[in-house]
């Protein structure tokens, strides 16, 4: 469970997040909104790259914002980025093991857990393959494997399906749906692909210009008139 209260971020005169208040209970939760709505800024606050002006984030009862950023991985925070970040010169195994060795103490079960994560995302090639030689889909899956290894508690996925063709998105979608059951983590999914969000997320929140304009069961949220307006840019009715 993650509770965000009055989270405000300011860059000079711009306010990418304005008193964002939101609670996600468990499972896979969606966070959608038009470009520039503040979704990635929100992730950057959780990662510790952006210091909020005001507000608090409590995740599983702990104050996330008071932790140094590199410590958050050890706490159980994982994320993927809009741009691919799997390390090209390392192998699949090393990519995942790297996250494990910096986020979890004890190396006894490392090999098993790393291989389990690679297997979980459905990468069935040789784990010693260099990531730079993989295709786009497999590189994405390596990133997801990095996000699920070593007892994550909060997994942030930033447009994981960007640039993937539909049939590959389908596999990714089934992997994302399985993360909460497999790891017990709360997953927050940001994506523009509404079919992916509807398929994965029980609940969804919508951001527009840094303000939460709707949240609730995904199907209802997607039908909400304000959400349609935010996305389609319809004239103000009131």
């Amino acid at each position, binding site marked *: 469970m993650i509770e965000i209260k009055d989270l405000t971020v300011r860059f000079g005169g711009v306010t990418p997040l304005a008193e964002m208040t939101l609670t996600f209970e468990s499972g896979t939760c969606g966070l959608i909104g038009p470009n520039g709505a503040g979704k990635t800024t929100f992730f950057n606050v959780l*990662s*510790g*790259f952006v210091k909020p002006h005001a507000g608090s984030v409590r995740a599983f009862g702990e104050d996330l914002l008071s932790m140094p*950023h*590199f*410590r*958050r*991985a*050890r706490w159980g*925070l*994982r*994320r993927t*980025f809009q741009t691919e*970040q799997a*390390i*090209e*010169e*390392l*192998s699949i*195994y*090393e990519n995942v*093991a*790297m*996250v494990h*060795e*910096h*986020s979890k103490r004890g190396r006894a079960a490392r*090999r098993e857990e790393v*291989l389990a994560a*690679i*297997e979980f995302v459905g990468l*069935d*090639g*040789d*784990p*010693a393959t260099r990531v730079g030689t993989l295709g786009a889909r497999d590189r994405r899956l390596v990133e997801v494997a*990095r996000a699920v290894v070593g007892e994550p508690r909060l997994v942030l996925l930033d447009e994981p399906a960007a640039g993937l063709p539909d049939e590959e998105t389908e596999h990714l979608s089934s992997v994302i749906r399985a993360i909460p059951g497999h790891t017990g983590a709360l997953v927050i999914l940001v994506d523009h692909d509404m079919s992916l969000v509807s398929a994965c997320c029980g609940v969804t929140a919508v951001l527009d210009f840094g303000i939460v304009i709707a949240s609730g069961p995904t199907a209802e949220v997607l039908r909400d008139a304000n959400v349609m307006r935010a996305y389609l840019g319809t004239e103000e009715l009131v």
Partner: protein
Amino acid sequence: MADSNVATRSRSSLRAAARLSRRDAINLLVVAGGVLFVLLALPSLLTPYWVVTSTSAVTFMIVALGLGLLVGRVGMISLGQGAVLALGAWVGARLLFATALPYPIVLVMTGLITMVLGTMIGLPALRVSGLYLALVTLMLAGAITVVLVDTNFPNGGSGFLGYADQSTGTPPSIRRPSIAESDPAFFRYVVIVALLMFLLALWHIRGKPGRAWAAIRQSEPAALAAGVNVTVYKMWAFALASFVTGIAGALLGSASHVLYAYTFPTSQSIVLFAVVLMGGVYTLFGAVIAGVLLQVIPGAFTVWGIPSEWATILFGVGVLQVLTTAPAGIAHQLPSDLARLGRFLFGVARRRIPAGGRAP
């Protein structure tokens, strides 16, 4: 069932990878053969002049190794490594004059002291990167050179600086290990030290620090998100690079017996960077090539009666060639060119002597 098959397959292939891959085994054989040749045969094949030049070449391989770690592994451009080398030479000479400790212990002590000093030079890397880091480290190197010109290198004098103004007579020489007093013996000694430094670097690269450095080089935010303490690992790289460079400095002092400040100009750091790029920063073999280029080419120029400084022109052209045609350096270019040449010759031979006795 299918899942467990996949798991077994991936596990067994990983175990195979954890053992020696065929490529690794070939590399190991080639390296072992090369090192044995250099240790056993090379000194007796070379003239005294070339033994001395080769000793510097191997020493500079260690320096190139340190800089290659920073540039190739972590992506930090330091133009201060020439100054770190000078610091290592100063510390090494001072310790060798001041103590009668066994040579390997002096080497390690020099490495550790230079590590502390060199890591301080690396501190700006926590705030700036790229061109600005290069500039800041270059200015620091300039500052160190200026101080060294004033204090001079230790020559057996008293006091902290250990320098005595001796206008007459030969200054006392910086000692060598008792088992390697002669030039060929010292050459072998330096080769073994270099080998140990390369193994130290390899151990880091293949382990947790190497993976963390690869993550930092690809993207700092992603490395942070993966739990890498970027500050610690950047400083770790500077510490390791300074450690090996400090040891190279100590060897340099013993090699020439006497050190002068003018042999460590600030510009050396820039030439060093260019040649390390030429050799190739992404493999350890690149550092070997860089060491050879740095010392053997000027050495050859001297023999041919060309001023050795002209090598800088060659390095300038060389670095342009490498950057435009083979960003991974000669270490990458050479094997692939040789392979292409091999295929070409093989193809010519096949056409000359067609299989089955009939020309195609």
